[in-house]
């Protein structure tokens, strides 16, 4: 808890620094909310063509899109700025994080904390609550717990991807866009029913990389619907385990990355 207070101090200092640039702050706040709204709108433009997506009607589609948006925006607010690592490695400024008695990753995201991203979290969570209300959730105790936990678990999963993607910069500084394929690409993938994808691409993203566990499987569990793809029912309750594994792998990857830090640029 004591260390949480330390990070709170760092985050508050960062917000004070940002407050000096008020106009930029407002521009970023509304700009990112508009872009976020566009992503959701895209789902519904495609939905409107046939009134369904991948064999699912409006309720399930809304629930998956909302769960994806809520998860992604939470992760983006918490650790999305980890991709700034690239600049820290390029300039050698990562040194200063290593010299303080705190975790380097926690410092990196605390020092770069972007308060403006709160706008998207609010947007995502409001949409999620609306979706829970109208999608026809089969309310049981398990479903209620899952409903609360799912966006957090999804957030941990996306957060692990953000961290893993950023970590690549320890070896390969120009890697930025590759990470986007899995973070923003993952967000796009999870916004839609997995049934819309096919072939090896679906197996890779949904199962091997685990994206089905963010929105698709939890939504099936909440709605108590069978999986058209025939995955066993117990799998849909496994999202927390998958997220935990992802987080551990990301943390391990980060540690290896830090040991490979070369501290050039002086």
């Amino acid at each position, binding site marked *: 808890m*004591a260390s949480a207070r330390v990070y709170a*101090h*760092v985050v508050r*200092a960062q917000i004070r620094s940002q407050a000096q640039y008020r106009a930029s702050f407002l521009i970023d706040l509304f700009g990112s909310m508009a872009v976020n709204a566009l992503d959701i709108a895209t789902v519904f433009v495609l939905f409107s063509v046939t009134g369904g997506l991948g064999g699912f009607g409006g309720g399930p589609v809304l629930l998956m899109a909302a769960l994806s948006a809520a998860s992604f925006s939470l992760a983006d607010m918490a650790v999305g700025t980890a991709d700034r690592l690239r600049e820290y490695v390029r300039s050698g*400024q990562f*040194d200063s994080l290593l010299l*303080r*008695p705190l975790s380097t990753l926690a410092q990196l995201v605390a020092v770069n904390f972007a308060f403006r991203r709160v706008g998207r979290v609010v947007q995502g969570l409001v949409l999620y609550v609306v979706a829970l209300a109208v999608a026809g959730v089969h309310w049981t105790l398990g479903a209620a717990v899952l409903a609360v936990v799912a966006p957090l678990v999804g957030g941990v999963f996306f957060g692990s991807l953000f961290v893993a993607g950023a970590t690549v910069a320890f070896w390969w500084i120009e890697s930025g866009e590759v990470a986007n394929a899995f973070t923003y690409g993952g967000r796009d993938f999870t916004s839609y029913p997995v049934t819309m994808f096919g072939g090896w691409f679906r197996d890779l993203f949904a199962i091997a990389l685990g994206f089905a566990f963010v929105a698709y499987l939890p939504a099936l569990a909440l709605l108590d619907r069978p999986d058209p793809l025939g995955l066993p029912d117990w799998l849909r309750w496994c999202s927390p385990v998958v997220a935990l594994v992802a987080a551990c792998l990301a943390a391990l990857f980060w540690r290896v990355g830090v040991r490979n830090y070369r*501290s050039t640029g*002086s």
Partner: protein
Amino acid sequence: MIIEVSGLRKDFTVTTKVGRLRRERTVVSAVDGVDLVVGRGELIGYIGPNGAGKSTTLKVLTGVLTPSAGRVRVCGLDPVADRTTLARRIGVVFGQRSQLWWDLPLGESFELLRHIYRVPAAEHAARLRTCSDLLDLDGFTRTPVRQLSLGQRMRGELTAALLHGPEVLFLDEPTIGLDVLSKQAVRGFLAELDRRGDTTVVLTTHDLADIEKLCERLVVIDHGRVVHDGTLDALHTRHGSRRTIVADLDAPWPAGQTVPGAAVTAVEADGTRVTLTLDGRAAGEVVAALARIVPLRDLSVQEPDIEDVVARIYRG
């Protein structure tokens, strides 16, 4: 011993382009078998030419870089494995990198560091008072760091590195790019710190004035290896620092003339000024020999310059 290093090596893989597409990887040892022991309260100068491995050594000692081989202990800790514990017990100033918060006033950076290092408020205030008095910070603690001059910023960095009362202070080029007054302020401060004797200081610098004023013990590193470890005087003796005699003559120096015990290194002013480098013999003997060859008008004996000594070591 507060710092113990033995057999330290740090390798980097360097990729170079060979032809249009092929790339070749070679391993370069930035530090190649360094042994170093520093006692509590010492102030040592760690010097060497660019690329000799000074900064790399400091980065390994502070836990920034993971060593490729060798044993490193600082305050009895392994810098990489015990990084966060060690961070509380050392202070670091890397001249080229800031520890401060760019957009915040200097004072707020100090306050933030108090929380980060969890320093009791009273202790923090006392140390800040001391630094502030010695480094004259009062004029600019409310200025955002980005608006400080380099000299002001460096004084801020030194304070920031000391607020948690570190046992060892690592300074990498703390005077680089500073104006004369700021350099003096920084040197005076370090001398005072050394006089008090409870902080060990490891200082790398290119500024030989820093060394002459501050460092009793010098560790010279070149090509990743320690080539000298001892006092400044020992350095002079060992590397044959030589005194020179410059003599103005009443008659031109005979071409090709030699002097026992010295080498003629320059003949100027139409042969009426000659420079002799002594090879260790007493100056009086050489002057006497000189006077037997030509009549002398004037004469000066020059002590060896540390700059020359270091340059000679660097050249190998």
